[in-house]
């Protein structure tokens, strides 16, 4: 069905494209690119946490938008909806789902870290420690999920 393919395409382009664009914009802002005059600002873990927060935020919003569009398809009958949703069952789409999980988990934990500083300003003195705790929490929550998701993707793939 053409409509289903179009919606699938939209979800795909939004998710991958916006993440890429967000990353490029931020990298440009920090002057990492070789074409720019000057060197990247060598901020610490706080700066890079902020960059990652922005990139994952845009990624999640873009996917959410695509997801609203594909759910909207349910109003046109189960055939269209089922065919659209089948995109998420494809083995090659799993890595993107893993990226989505990473984005959501990172954004959530980093958001909690920032909220801590908002309400208890003295914690800002230990910002590097909190950034490391947040990264550790992210790894604990994300890595097992990524393992199981990628394992099932591998089993379904031609390699499996």
């Amino acid at each position, binding site marked *: 069905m053409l409509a289903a393919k179009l919606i699938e395409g939209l979800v795909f382009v939004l998710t991958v494209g916006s993440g890429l664009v967000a990353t490029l914009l931020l990298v440009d802002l920090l002057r990492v690119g070789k074409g720019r005059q000057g060197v990247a*600002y060598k901020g610490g*873990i*706080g700066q890079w946490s902020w960059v990652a927060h922005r990139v994952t935020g845009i990624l999640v919003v873009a996917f959410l938008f695509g997801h609203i569009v594909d759910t909207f398809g349910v109003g046109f009958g189960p055939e269209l909806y089922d065919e659209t949703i089948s995109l998420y069952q494809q083995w090659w789409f799993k890595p993107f789902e893993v990226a989505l999980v990473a984005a959501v988990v990172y954004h959530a934990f980093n958001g909690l870290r920032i909220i801590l500083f908002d309400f208890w300003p003295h914690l*800002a003195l230990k910002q590097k420690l909190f950034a490391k705790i947040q990264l550790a929490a992210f790894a604990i929550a994300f890595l097992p999920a990524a393992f199981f998701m990628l394992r099932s993707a591998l089993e379904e793939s031609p390699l499996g």
Partner: protein
Amino acid sequence: MNVDLNLLRYNPEFDSRPHFESYRVQADPMERLLDCLHKVKWELDSSLALRFSCAHGVCGSDAMVVNGVNVLACKVLIKDLKQPITVEPIRGLSVLKDFIVDMEPFFAGYKAVKPWLIVDESEHEPARERIQSQEERDRFEDTTKCILCAACTTACPIFWSDEEYVGPAAIVNAHRFIFDSRDTGGDERLEILSQRDGAYKCRTAFNCTEACPRGIKVTKAIQEVKRVALYRSF
């Protein structure tokens, strides 16, 4: 020892865009970067433009991006820098020539927060001094140390993309008066800092705290201002 410098030069009269030029000077490892820049200017290329005044980390004139981070050229020792030393003007403000930037947007943010003592009009000439306890004074001790060098504000990624943001230095100076027990202008300042370009634009990237040559806990001060601005509304 030989000191290799990569300086980001820009002269609006001749250059369409900034470009790097390399210089080599002789210096003692215990000399400061400002000494090397002076050697370039005095001995190799007199067209190099930079600001400095006291040369001892007090006036705050010579903030620059050195090897990717904001420092005062007069405070950083040659032995602590990896060579070749890359020097660029501070970011987020338009470059007038070489390391001289237009500081007006920075000072506009500073003035916007009314960085002076505001007291009750009727108390203009008080009969006695305004007494303050040690604890009351300690409340804002950290933020009295600001020298307005703009190292914090021009290290802020939010300020790079939005000159209208008052910036960390302005909030630090607002903090200095908001938490001063003698001052009565706290509400006025919090009103200004609660607006779109005020304290809430801070995204806690902590570049300001790491860049401050005076060691001010800038992000902590900003967070304290945000918090008091928030709780004021309840």
